[in-house]
């Protein structure tokens, strides 16, 4: 069952040995026991709308909102532990992808205060949004190279977030999806890699050669 991953390339830290470890440094007690379960509840449609309005009105994201080439990946409740300043607040985590600048947008919106309290813009790759999954399927379905490889009864079975292993692969740098075609009985026939920035198919691979 064993298999190596890239994660294993992490330098292994030394765990310092102590015959009888002393207790950790004392800190002020943290009262996590009194956390409010309702803060974990799914966001209401109104809360989702509120979070997205607040985010797109933030001046740091003005260019993204103006160009309008972004996809909201997900908006989920976020609960921060005491003694954090935001603990006890109703928070929304909004993850989006800004295609105009090819970057991920990762924000925390304080719904109680109506402000963006945390914002990161970076080159990481969040999961695909539902809209991106649908786009990838539609791009793959009209590609002649894909169509030529499909057998009778093949249809899109799944769309996965994919990235290449080496810089030779376009999807190493660019946001991409893999559309797996096959039969409804679980047999896979063809994999099409779709570049979501240019909305083109970059690879068509028989499933058995993937």
């Amino acid at each position, binding site marked *: 069952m064993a298999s190596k991953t890239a994660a294993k390339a992490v330098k292994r830290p030394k765990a310092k040995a102590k015959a009888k470890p002393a207790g950790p440094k004392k800190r002020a007690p943290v009262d996590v026991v009194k956390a409010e379960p309702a803060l*974990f509840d799914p966001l209401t449609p109104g809360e989702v709308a509120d979070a997205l309005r607040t985010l797109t009105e933030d001046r740091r994201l003005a260019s993204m909102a103006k160009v309008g080439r972004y996809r909201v990946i997900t908006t989920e409740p976020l609960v921060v532990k005491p003694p954090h300043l935001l603990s006890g607040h109703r928070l929304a985590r909004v993850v989006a992808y800004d295609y105009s600048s090819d970057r991920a947008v990762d924000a925390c919106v304080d719904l109680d205060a109506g402000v963006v309290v945390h914002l990161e813009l970076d080159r990481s790759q969040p999961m695909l949004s539902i809209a991106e999954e649908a786009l990838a399927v539609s791009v793959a379905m009209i590609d002649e190279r894909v169509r030529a490889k499909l057998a009778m009864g093949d249809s899109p079975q799944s769309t996965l977030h994919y990235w290449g292993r080496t810089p030779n692969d376009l999807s190493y740098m660019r946001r991409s999806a893999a559309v797996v075609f096959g039969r409804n009985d679980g047999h896979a026939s063809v994999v099409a890699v779709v570049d979501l920035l240019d909305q083109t198919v970059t690879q068509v691979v028989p499933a058995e050669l993937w």
Partner: protein
Amino acid sequence: MSNVIEEANWKFHWRLTESAGIMIYLADFKGRRVLWEGSLPYVTIDHQRQELTPDQDAGEPHGPWWVPLGTRTIAGPVRVQSFRGGIELSANFVAGPYHYMQLWRFHDDGRLCPWLTILGPGVHDQHTYHPHFRFDFDLDGAGDDAIERYEEGRWQRVEHEGWFPYSGEADDHGNVWRQIDFGSRASINIRPHSWDDAEVFAIRYHDGEWAPFTPRSAAGAQPFPAGYVGDEELDGHDVSLWYVAHVHFDQSFPYTAGPWIRVEGLG
């Protein structure tokens, strides 16, 4: 269905997430807090060549991929069922040729089993699953905790963030990692499945390292959770643990990955 369950000495909440399967939060055992939040942030899948000719590079030709396990991929309802000595939650997820069943099992003796049954079949036989479980334990409160691993025949303190693979060494009960609360002397013991090829990442809490998680950082950078690892002190700080299994597909599937977790010393 209520999302609060009180049974078998446990009280916990659950919800179905967008991408991290069934999340358990605010879990207490015998009235004492054990877990702030636990989930299955992602399952990445690598593929290897089915056949290799002499002129081919032996490296894997393609990168990994993943699909969120959650509201988009759930097949059927989340099931809540009692069993002799406990209660369990389970749900099936289907994403094309990938089929999973996520389980959370709570035993009245303090055992907790966050598991993932992987059914396959995948796009072909040569592939490996990497389920990533994340736990934010707050044993009897968030403070006064420390992380230890079993190494060189005894428990040793993990003072800084890092990656701690299962080396084959374990205590008499099979436990390899543990979180200890120095106030109550209670502990959370983590025993890997011997075929999981498991590893644990111990990471200090930081703003922004929040759910929903993604495995993909910037091109050329370490994937997550390795990308979160620095060299910060862990003692007395808020720490999250990632348990990662590596499971190669074979004909004997289904296979159930994930650790046994046991709470000891509470109540």
